[in-house]
């Protein structure tokens, strides 16, 4: 982890338990994490700050997931998005969000699984940063 700057992660899920269980695990793995249960607040936050990785559910009140995803991508060239969603809505999610999603994870999932995906996403972010510098 010996990076001078921690990677920034945003979690958005309207069920508080998801952030509650994920945030400590990601913090222990050396990331800085901001968690949201309201999409409008998360939306506002991504307009203020650039995140490296965004973990989001899709069933939202108020803001449509597509809109949020587009905003994240628009604000940042390097950000990667991981979609977590219930088993039932997995297929729909995959159909509508093929574009710009790093990976899909079905709930319930193991914390270790998600950490692994985050690590891979981080790797991709790092590569993109390197390319931008060139």
């Amino acid at each position, binding site marked *: *982890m010996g990076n001078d700057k921690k990677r920034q992660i945003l979690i958005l899920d309207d*069920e508080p*338990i998801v952030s509650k269980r994920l945030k*400590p*695990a990601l913090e222990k793995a050396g990331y800085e994490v901001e968690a949201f249960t309201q999409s409008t607040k998360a939306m506002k936050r991504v307009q203020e700050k650039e995140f490296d990785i965004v973990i989001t559910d899709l069933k939202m009140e108020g803001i449509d997931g597509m809109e949020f995803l587009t905003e994240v991508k628009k604000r940042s060239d390097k950000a990667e998005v991981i979609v977590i969603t219930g*088993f039932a809505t997995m297929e729909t999610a995959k159909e509508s969000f093929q574009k710009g999603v790093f990976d899909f994870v079905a709930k*319930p999932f*193991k914390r270790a699984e998600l950490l692994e995906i985050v690590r891979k996403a981080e790797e991709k972010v790092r590569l993109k940063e390197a390319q931008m510098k060139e």
Partner: protein
Amino acid sequence: MGVLERLKKTIFPGRQRSGEVTFLELFKTFQNILEKNNKILEVIAGMGDKLGGEYVFDKQYIISSCREVGELVRDLIYDLNIIAQKKYLDLYDAFERIHHDIEEELAGRPVISEGSYVIPLEEIPRDSSDMVGGKMANLGEIVNILGLASSPGFVITTAAFKAFMEYNNIWDRIREQPLDEKSAEEIYRLICDGSVPGEIQNDLQSCVDRLADKVGRYNLFFAVRSSARGEDSLHSFAGQFKSYLNEPVQNLTQCYKEVVASGYSPSALAYRREKEIGEDEVAMAVGCQLMVQAEASGVLYTMDPTAPAREIAVIEAIWGLGAPLVSGEAAGDHYLVSRIPPHEVEAFNVRLKTSMLIPKEGGGTETVPVPEELRTCPCIAAEHIRRLVELALVIERYFKKPQDIEWALDRDGQFVILQSRPLNIQAQVASLVCDLSTVGEGHRIIFRDKGSIAQRGIGAGTVWFIRSDEDMENFPAGAILVSKRTSPRLARVVPKASGILTDVGSPTGHMATIAREFRVPTIVNTGVATSLLEPGQEITVDAEQNVVYEGRVKELCYYEFTEEPFEESDEYRLLLRVLKKIAPLNLVNPHERNFAPEGCKTYHDITRFVHEKAVAHLIHREYHGKEPDAPARRLKLNIPIGLLLIDIGGGIDAAAGSGDLQPEQVTSVPLRAILEGMTHPGMWSTEPMSVDLGSFMSSLTRTFSSQLATPKYLGQNLAVVSQQYMNLSLRLGYHFNMVDAYISENINDNYAYFRFLGGVTELLRRERRVRLLAEILEQNDFRVDVTGDLVVGRIKKLDVSGMIEKMKVLGHLVAFTRQLDVQMIDDDKVNGAIAMFNKLAAGNLLPESKGRSNGQR
């Protein structure tokens, strides 16, 4: 599964009697039942797994799982009624009852069972704070799950509170206007002058009588304490409510009312305002426990709230009853004890103790002078201190939070836990945990990401290997239990362990269930634990991130204290509550009276009932005359089993004529393999065997006598087969075995399912037999689920030769356990039997050793 599809292709042209289904239709429905049965048990096991903490799930998952199981169970009832021609429509009523309760739970309206007005301490169910209040719920878990001592007694529940308030029209009075100090005072009076409904009085009296019989004394004196819903968990309510000491039986009802009334004291009211607790949320249960004849009493903090980093527990102790210490009137001896085994006393301060509070003859308490010789004496001896801290840490590990414990030392030198609540040290600990990502730096990682987490959490301690029963006996409290395999045998020491690591094992096995029961951080199937760890080595098991560190990683342990334990989250508790209506198995014995639709209390009960009846109908029908559409034929074997065979396509050699069949005429792959296992030399113990085996067996069992092999039983043994498929139902002696398997070239379709139900021996022996089965199945890579005396083993997706090997093991097991019907004398016998089984299976115990039969055909 695909089996059904394939079966449908084989249609028997059969004569159909009016109103009856053909055998094949019947069997197809039976197959449906079996398939749903498996699916139900799988979903239930999956829900159980989620309690381990490795998964992130939300409420939606709980809702959809409950509905999934519900729909399957409803279909199952429908299928059974096809087979049994609508004989079991009552099951729908049982289903509706359970379904309704689950839906209520999901809607956030916990079901408080009406009429449970008074519950004995030893019967307080887990996670029942809604019913018995926070304080008594904690105590219930300490006594009933952790097995620690408290004083005997009972709790007058929140259901009684509701009934009391309604009976005296007090609710209406409270709802009339917002409570202020003046109206609260009126409520207080109304409660004290109210009358306790007759039903509650009766329940109370019968609990008192039972208690008196139990302790053999009729002149009982009680401590009566509040146990409000939410007290001791989210909000301490410390000191808000009244409590009474040493009250004679005849005062119980008055004390009860006074304690309830104290919920409406001005300070309790103000407290609720501040914490934004609604008046309609108030529910007061009241704990009544026998007075402890306390030599000394005190308080213990498992951590020093002023300096958590010091790794010490703090004990305060005084002579007599603890009330003056708790209320702050008296100061006691002060001990600082290391949290790390062997719990050395690091510092102590023995104060001069001049007076003490003791129970008064005839009721109440009095303050008396401390005898001269005790005034400057420490209240607890050095050897007692260690034991007290060990007990306290068992409680802390379970609740996953530092604890504030009230205890007493009785005249027999036994510690009694009076209450335990979380100690709030959030702020102090948070400052210790600066940057989480650096936690563990400076600690060598011994291994990481090996195996599966069966129960989350952090545990630090010294490694203790368990290789023998002796190792188990000597297990030091607070150590990390390391063993090669998971074993149900280890259950006894699990509560004492800070963590558990095994080389082999399944996160859904019996052991995992026990680890979850006691919330001990557990990683199973690591493959490396016993080879990479040394006995006596200090390690930290991080069963959150799946890492094992060398040394004690203090920050990790502290960090866990700052998190809200997953076990306290709403989702966990909801899952636990709905599982109570889904998973337990109450219908144990088909011969008992409760084995009926109205005896079904859970979805599992219904599933079990349906399965049992479906098999009975299939067999019964077979037994009462040969079906023209599917002739059953007897199979000639060299073991007395009386097996009938129904072929539904390619299971019997086409060239076989009519009449009895020879084993070599069986072409069904799974049946051939299981028969080979069953007739393996020594397993059925009918042929001559070596002396040591014979004597061992006779020391262990009363062999299944030939008188039991009546035609009634013989008719119970039926195999329905095709070339790839087998469904075998066996009733041997008192057990019932069922094996269902499919073996083909397509690896993904292959599976074997083994189900064992014990018979009518006493519970303990049944349990031993279950342990033996579970252990042998786990050794052979089966996924094992144990509920009561039902053992289910599953395995799937092996290639043909792999599946054949497993079928042989099942054959061995069927034959072997048939001999173990009655006399499982002690735990050593179980281990001996397992060893014997393995020797037999390996062909090492034969007089005229025929060597191993090689199954790779």
